[in-house]
Structures are given as C-alpha cells and as structure tokens.
C-alpha cells in the first residue's frame, strides 16, 4: 500500500514538473483552467490582474461578463489593410478582425510581447496603415524604430547574431543550451500556477494578504492603492520617480524629444511603403481616473499639441475621462470593454478622415 501511495505521489509530481517545463502543456492547461468557474479553476487574473498580485479581498471584482456590442462595419468598400502592433489593451476579438475597423479589409496584429518577429506583408490592392498602440507607461521604450522593427520585420539569421569574438563563447552557448533544455525559464511561475493558482486557495491567499496589508502595511511592490481606496494601480504608473508614471516630471525638452522619436518612426515606416502611420498612446488609468488629487504630466496631450508634431496621434484621454470609473476595472491595470469601445470609436473617426 505504501509503495502504491509513493508511486502515485511520484507520478503526480513528475506530471507537475513535466507540464511546468512545457510551453504547450502550460498553454493547454491554463486555457482549460481559466475557463473553469469552480474551485479548481485558475483565479489569478480572473478578478483583475492587480487583485491577482495582491489578493486584497475588497478589490476582488466580479467576473467580467460585461460585453459591449461593438458596431460591425462594412468591409465591402474596404480600402485599408491594418498592420497593428499593440499590447494587452487591445482585446483579441477585435484586434484581429477587420470588421471592427473603418474601411478595413484585412488586419495583421502583432503583440509587443511576441517572442519572435512576425514580418508585415504590404497589400498591393489596398492602402497600408500601420497602427502603433502602446500604454503610456511603456511608450518611451517601445515606440522606437528598432523596437518596432524587431517585431514586424524579418530578422537576420540567428547564427550571424550569435557570432562572438570571445574565445569562450562556445562554452556560454553550451551553458545556455543545457539550461534551456533542462530548466524552463519560467518554471517557478509555472509551478506556482499548477499548484497554487486554484480558486480553492483564494481564502488562504486573501487571509495572508489581509495580514500583510492591514497589520504590517505591506503590499506587493508592483501595486499601490489609490488615495480614495477604490482603485489599485501599478506602482510604475503612480510613483513619480518611475519614468512610466503619470506623475513623472517631464520637461518640454523631453516632450520634444519624444515627438522627434515618433516622427522618426513615422518617417521610417512610410519609407518602407506604409501609406499612413497612426500612433495611439493609451493613458495610464491613474491619468484618467483622477484619484490622487495631484496634476499629471499630461504627456500625451502635450505631445499631440506640440508644434513639431505633424503625424496622427490618437489620444483617448478626454473621452475616457467622461464617466471615467465606468471605463476601467477597479483592480486591473487595463480598461474594460467600454473603455476599449471608446478608443475604437475614436480610432474609426480618425480612419474616416484619412
């Protein structure tokens, strides 16, 4: 009997290790687990990604079942092909479907987080539009020519890049290969998902969180509670010392430099055959919700109004600020479908004017 129990335990742990080391296995499991609504389902990001980092119970939001019916547009008169590079603010169901974009017959969507480049293919029979979308906290690093090229242009063969002058380069290559084969880079996170990202553990996590937060005054380093205690924010968006923050002091010279950065991107991709390059910077939630009682750096609007800026920059800040709390989740770093719909409406207005 003891041997049988030991064997079952061994099988279980081996299963956990094998799945935790496999991208395919993790994808399969996470899809299934996030679909489950019972205690065996994954709950980390179901009730808000920032709740998933903190497990502060008052911020546990109901499952997002709100569905905003987006207008489905005519594609018969489609004259654009949209090439989109964007982040998790763009819901998959519309960012890959041309019917949601004005006068658009085809869409190619690439995430900033793509592990390898997905080269664009310009349409010959349509106008090609490059839409570059990014949240405010990341645009400085991402909206650069090389960053974008790395994601949507064919990359040189890996071997050429790996050529190194070091005599010991082959050793580090062997090292990297062995490490990659034996130890999955996100194994620790995967194991946490497999063993502890279960609804049944939530009460324990909430209790530990409550102890840390209410007794010891500690919260996950990446998360802050708003001044009115109604909203969770990513620390990097509210800490004035962090460059991605809405409160990071930004001089006019810096704004001019960012405008020049975007202008360079526009010029480069127009030279590559794109007819239009549209930028859209999504404001950090804290920049819209106005909970901190202090002025933000207004960086997006300052860029849009800068005299040197001649391109197209979709800035949804003002529209999102109307009934702002309806457009964001209280414990998620993203907007909700209403927020996305407002942005999409504004983008389509821009597309109509081209």
């Amino acid at each position, binding site marked *: 009997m003891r041997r049988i129990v030991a064997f079952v335990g061994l099988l279980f*742990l081996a299963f956990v290790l094998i799945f935790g080391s496999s991208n395919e296995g993790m994808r399969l499991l996470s899809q299934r687990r996030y679909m489950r609504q019972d205690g065996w389902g994954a709950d980390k990001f179901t009730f808000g990604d920032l709740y998933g980092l903190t497990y502060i119970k008052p911020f546990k939001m109901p499952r997002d079942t709100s569905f905003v019916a987006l207008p489905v547009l005519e594609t018969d008169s489609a004259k654009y092909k949209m090439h989109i590079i964007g982040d998790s603010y763009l819901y998959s169901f519309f960012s890959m479907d041309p019917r949601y974009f004005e006068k658009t017959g085809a869409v190619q969507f690439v995430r900033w987080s793509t592990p390898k480049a997905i080269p664009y293919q310009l349409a010959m029979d349509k106008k090609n539009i490059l839409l570059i979308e990014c949240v405010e906290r990341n645009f400085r690093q991402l909206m650069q020519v090389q960053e974008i090229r790395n994601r949507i242009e064919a990359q040189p063969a890996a071997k050429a890049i790996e050529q190194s002058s070091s005599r010991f380069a082959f050793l580090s290559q062997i090292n990297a290969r062995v*490490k990659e084969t*034996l*130890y999955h880079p996100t194994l620790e996170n995967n194991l*946490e998902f497999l*063993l502890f990202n279960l609804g049944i553990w939530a009460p324990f996590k909430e209790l530990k969180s409550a*102890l840390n937060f209410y007794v*010891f005054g500690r919260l996950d380093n990446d998360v802050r509670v708003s001044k009115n205690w109604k909203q969770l924010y990513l620390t990097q968006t509210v800490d004035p010392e962090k460059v991605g923050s809405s409160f990071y002091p930004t001089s006019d010279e810096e704004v001019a430099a960012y405008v020049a950065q975007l202008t360079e991107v526009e010029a480069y991709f127009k030279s590559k055959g794109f007819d239009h390059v549209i930028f859209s910077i999504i404001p950090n939630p804290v920049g819209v919700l106005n909970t901190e009682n202090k002025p933000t750096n207004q960086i997006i609007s300052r860029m849009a109004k800068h005299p040197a800026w001649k391109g197209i920059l979709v800035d949804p800040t003002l529209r999102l600020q109307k009934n702002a709390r309806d457009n964001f989740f209280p414990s998620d770093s993203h907007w909700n479908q209403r927020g996305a719909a407002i942005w999409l409406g504004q983008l389509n207005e821009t597309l109509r004017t081209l």
Partner: protein
Amino acid sequence: MVFNSLQFLVFFGIVTLAYFLLAHKYRWLLLLLASCYFYMAFVPIYLGILALTIVIDYFAGILLEQHEGRKKKWILALSIVANVGVLAVFKYYQFIFNNISWLAHALDIPVQMPVLSILLPIGLSFHTFQAMSYTIEVYRGNQKAERNFGIYSLYVMFYPQLVAGPIERPQNLIHQFYERKHWDRHRVQSGLLQMGIGIFKKVVIADRLAMVVDEVYGNVVEQSGTNLAVAAVFYSFQIYCDFSGYSDVAIGAARVMGFKLMDNFRAPYWATSIPEFWRRWHMSLSTWFKDYVYFSLGGNRVSIPRWYLNIMIVFVLSGLWHGASWNFVIWGSLHGIFQLIGLTLNRLFPVLAADRRKTVLGQWLYRLLTFFLVTIAWVFFRIAHFSTIKLWFKQMAQFDFSSPLNVSMVSKELYLSVFLIVGLFALEYKRDKFKMYLENFFWLVFPVLLLGIYFLGVFSMKQFIYFQF
C-alpha cells in the same frame, strides 16, 4: 535551485519518493543524477569544474593508499594544489589581480594581468573543502580510498549539502551510501520537521529581518545611530537564521532519506566567549580548520607566540574562505584578535574566567559581551566598502539614545521581529529537549509550522547568504 522555492519542493518530492521506490543498488545513481540536476540549475557548465576536481581527487585517493613516504606526501600536495588552484582561479584571481594592480600603481610599476571576468561557481568553497578532507583523511589513514567512482562523486556532490554545507567528512558520509535505507516513519517525520524549521527560520525570520537590514545598510549615510544599531543586531540574527535555516533544510532532507549529516549550529548566541561561539557556529567549517590547519600548525602544543600566530592564521584563512575581499579578511582577523585578547586576559586574570563558570549574572555578562563583539564583527562581513564601514562607525559614534528608530517597517512588524528573535533565542536554550517535544507531536506541530511559514513568511525568493561562498 534554492531551498525556498517551489522547484525544490517538487524536486525533493520526486527524488525522495523515487529513492524509496528504487532497488538499493540503483539508489546511488539516482542521487548522483539528482545532485547534478540540482547543481546545474545555477550554471550548468560549472559542473565541469566539479567533475575536474572529482577525477583528480578520486585518483589521488587511490594513489595515496598505494604509496608511502615522500611519494605519498607529493600526491597529497598535488591534490591540494589542484583543489586550491581551482579555488584560486575562480574565487581569488580577481582579488589578487586587483591588489597587485593597486600595489603596482602605488609603486609606479607597470603591470599587465589578464582580466578574468567569470562568475564564481556556486558553493565552490564548500565543495573544495569537502573534497580536500577526503584526500587528507585517506592520507592520514582514517579513510579507505573509495574505489567506486560514482559513490565518490556522490560524496562530494550529495545535493542537500552540495552548495552550502555542512562540510562533511568522508568517515561520516561515504559508508552511508552503501547502507540499505528503509522507510522509517519517525525518521522521516523528524527530517521533515527539521526542514520545516529551517524554512521557517529563512522565510519568516531571516527574510523579515532583511527588510530592515537591507534598507539601513543600503543607505548608511542617512541613518541614525539607533537605526544602525538595530540593523546590526538584526543582521546578527538574519545571517544566523539564514545559514542555520539552510543547514536545517540540508540535514532534514538528508535525514528523510536516512542519511545523517553533521550538526552545523548549536545555539551560537548562547556562547559566553568567542572560542565557544566558534564551537557552536558553522561547526563543520570550524572543525575543518581545527582538524586540518590548526592541528597541522601545531595547535597549542607550541610556544605561546607561535600558538597565537596559529590562531591568527586560522582566522585570517577563515575570513578569506568566506570571500575574496578585505572586509572578510578583517572580519576573520577580528575574531582572531578577540580570541587572543580573551586568552591573554584569562592568563592575566584567572579570576575573571572562573567567575564566568560560577554566577548566572557573570555568564549573562559574558554572553552579552560575546554577542556584542560578534555583532561588531558582522558589520565588516555585511559591508564590503571601507568608506561605508568608516561611515558606520562615524554615525555610531554620534549615537543618540533619544533618537527613535526610523525605518519603513511598521511597529507591529518590528515587534513581531523582536518576538521571533527572542522566541528563537529562548527555544534554543533547551534545543534538544524542545526538538524531542516537537517530534512527539508531529501531526500537530508540522501543519502549524506550515501555516506559520505560509502566513508569516516573506516570499521574496531571496537567496541564502552563504550561497555566495
């Protein structure tokens, strides 16, 4: 792979269950493969360095057994040079290089040495010392040369103690790999309990104290004397809980499978003198130095100046063993100097030494003095830069008793930290008796311990301090 990770939890479960399911004759192979996997989780290629010294020491052991006299000495010397050589290249090269460059620059002599920018293989000092103890014991005739290459490799690579000790002796460990281990519920429970206590010390106490220590030592210039004093005391307990916690997990994990590793700590802050502290702190290292260096130099059976010199040599080497940096050398030297002062005072005022054995108050005074000296020495261990150490003492010289503690940790958590320190200190007084009680109530104690780890633990995945050595 750190002990306070889920990877280790799964790894430990798999290896232990497979160990008991496998036939006895294959178990050493399982443990060896598991140990390789465990070590390669850090930098896989460094397994090659371990393999190199393993091959050298394996053959050195056999040759030592086959030869006598001068030849035997040469074989031992070669083996030690090979081991120390590996340590010198990977751990001390940059240190030596920096010092020669500095000296040459000061004397205006042009010197060019190749820069070797390599990462120190994790636990290399532990591994090397364990390997050297094998050849020395074979040389002394206390241990037979191991003929099974796999078993010898396992002796130096046994995963629970591979990266941070305890530094084992071959007489204690090698024969255990041949013994048939059976599932013994009480032994398994005892091992699991010790692992739990080790993890508790690490994630509940050490990593909690580290929050204050890192904040204060990260910015010494802006700290008050109170902050520095509290951080210094906290660091004394942080490093103790961090390292003894690691040892507990190592010893416990081995015990679950039926292996008995040597004790590494025995309530060190209960010591009433510096020599006693070293009989209780990192015992596997201090006995190593005692057995292989101090006694080889003649110990105390020499003239008094030579005896003092022997003590200083051992402590300077011990400091160097910890790290290739002057602050570690000073830390070791300080302990040596404390010992010498103690010895001299005992010789000059024997009454003082006698007092210590008589009264409770006297014992407590000596205990506090010892803790104070050890804590001062830890400042040199914790701070690498001399300018910062100087600043630390400068700020402390302006110590103001009225200035309050000002750190970002809230008072409730500070009280909890102090409670944990006092609790740990008190429980260690009757350590063995307390452990026996815990083992008797395993099914009550273990779940409570796990809940304590979960609810009070600071899960920052902070590495163990001694991993860097």
